[in-house]
């Protein structure tokens, strides 16, 4: 077994891992290594060939591969060590990383700090339990995206999409452009899970119907999918008898959610948050296990890669500080609570000392669509201040700053709660 020692090991070479590694390096910790199981860097981005990336970070609209290329160039310019085709198998709480590849065989790397950046995986048909057969032609939207955009294989000709997450919407357009008949996108909720711009550009542009309050209630076909039955659902999301409709289709794409990929994190004793499916972190994106950090889709599912980059840079900064011995914890830990209409807030804790910072950005999602709302911060039950937002949607992340000055003025507090409420009379 090959044994190595590194200041920082980054697991995953997607946008999160790349940006984190670059940040670590730029903070003077140059002994950093990226481990990636795929044959190339970039994570999910090489298959996301559509435009819409980078508007926040680069102030220009890029496609997924172009966005990835910028960070791959940054990694190459710094000669940051990368091991491709390398699968990480295990991480221990004392930061030993075990991996495998053809060239080195088994690897054991003792790391000063570890950054988890493994991304997420898609929920599958099994995970949502649709009755009926399991013929070929039922696949996740991300898998279909890989076939269509990387391997050059069109998954089918008559398509129904279940779930209106971004990947489903993007694939509706993609398959339509490649000549498939996309018959409908069914969404069980009364609103879409994807970005509004994707509903416009991917469905409305091509007259693809979006059926809200609808789900797939049956799958038909033996070897290959022949048809799906869809039904309208009631307020409790239960199919309404008598509303069934049969649609002939050879392909059903599932875009029913992403789950952070935390098998490795669990092995390292990292504690996960039920709401995000990712680790519970402090403002440096450090998990409960000292010196193990997390960022990107492995921490919580992001809709925009720009936010992934921001988060990865935070993790990279603090991982570098940790390795240099510059990371100090304050004697009190402030818990950040997700209050009314808030599904989660990242970070979950604030506990690091930083004299220079002006503010700590809090990232959050709402549980349900809201209009004319107010994001209210309170400390131990007392209201601090609030921000107005014209609207908030579960599919789109919100960010508000928590001022360091406010924290200094408050002195010792236990918790900060974020509520998002609709203003009355509007």
């Amino acid at each position, binding site marked *: 077994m090959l044994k190595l020692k590194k200041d920082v090991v980054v697991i995953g070479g997607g946008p999160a891992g790349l940006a984190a590694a670059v940040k670590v390096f730029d903070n003077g910790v140059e002994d950093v290594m990226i481990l990636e199981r795929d044959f190339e860097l970039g994570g999910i981005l090489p298959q996301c060939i559509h435009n819409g990336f980078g508007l926040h970070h680069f102030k220009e*609209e890029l496609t997924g591969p*172009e966005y990835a290329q910028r960070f791959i160039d940054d990694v190459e310019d710094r000669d940051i060590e990368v091991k491709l085709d390398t699968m990480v198998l295990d991480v221990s709480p004392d930061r030993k990383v075990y991996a495998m590849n053809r060239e080195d065989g088994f690897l054991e790397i003792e790391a000063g700090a570890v950054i988890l950046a493994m991304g997420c995986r898609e929920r599958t048909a099994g995970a949502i339990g649709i009755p009926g057969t399991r013929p070929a032609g039922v696949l996740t939207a991300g898998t279909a995206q890989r076939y269509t955009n990387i391997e050059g294989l069109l998954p089918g000709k008559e398509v129904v999409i279940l779930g209106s997450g971004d990947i489903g919407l993007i694939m509706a357009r993609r398959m339509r452009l490649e000549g498939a008949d996309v018959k409908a996108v069914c969404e069980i909720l009364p609103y879409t899970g994807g970005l509004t*711009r994707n509903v416009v550009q991917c469905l409305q542009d091509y007259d693809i119907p979006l059926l809200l309050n609808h789900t797939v209630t049956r799958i038909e076909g033996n070897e290959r999918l022949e048809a799906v039955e869809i039904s309208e659902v009631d307020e409790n999301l239960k199919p309404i008898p008598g509303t069934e409709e049969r649609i002939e289709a050879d392909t059903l794409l599932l875009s029913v959610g992403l789950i952070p990929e935390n098998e490795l994190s669990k092995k390292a004793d990292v504690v996960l948050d039920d709401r995000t499916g990712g680790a519970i972190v402090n403002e440096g994106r450090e998990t409960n296990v000292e010196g193990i950090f997390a960022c990107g889709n492995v921490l919580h599912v992001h809709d925009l890669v720009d936010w992934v980059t921001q988060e990865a840079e935070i993790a990279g900064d603090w991982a570098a500080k940790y390795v240099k011995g510059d990371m100090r914890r304050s004697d009190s830990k402030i818990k950040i609570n997700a209050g009314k209409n808030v599904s989660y807030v990242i970070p979950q804790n604030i506990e690091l000392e930083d004299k220079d910072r002006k503010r700590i950005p809090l990232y959050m999602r709402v549980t349900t669509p809201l209009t004319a709302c107010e994001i209210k911060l309170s400390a131990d039950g007392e209201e601090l201040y609030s921000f107005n937002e014209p*609207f908030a949607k579960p599919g789109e992340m919100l960010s508000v700053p928590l001022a360091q000055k406010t924290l200094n003025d408050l002195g010792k507090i236990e918790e900060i709660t974020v509520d998002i409420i609709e203003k009355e009379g509007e």
Partner: protein
Amino acid sequence: MSETKTLTCVACPKGCEVTVKYEGNEILDIQGNACPQGADYAREEIIAPTRILPTTVAVKDGALPLVPVKTTKPISLEIIHDAMKIIGKTKVKAPVKIGQVIIENILETGADVVATRDLPKKAG
């Protein structure tokens, strides 16, 4: 008779709801946009909607069978399917460089179709 349409601006992921009042091709009023891009978008969306077209082109002897491409400018939504037909008949030889022009001035739109990644030759 004037008409009113509420559009979701796609200039950025913020997704402002912009309300446009118009009569034929004449814009009477635009509301709800957070920035000037929103007004431009709404105007164009009523008169002649355009989009960037991202797709793929077949590659000969590449490390992968396809290379992703995009139009350098938004092109009219009406001719997207015609553009797809032309792009579908195109094949390039590896290696391909990011930014490399694959089709010049597609359908006289003034937009080029360019590669959006590097693609090396197939090993061996």
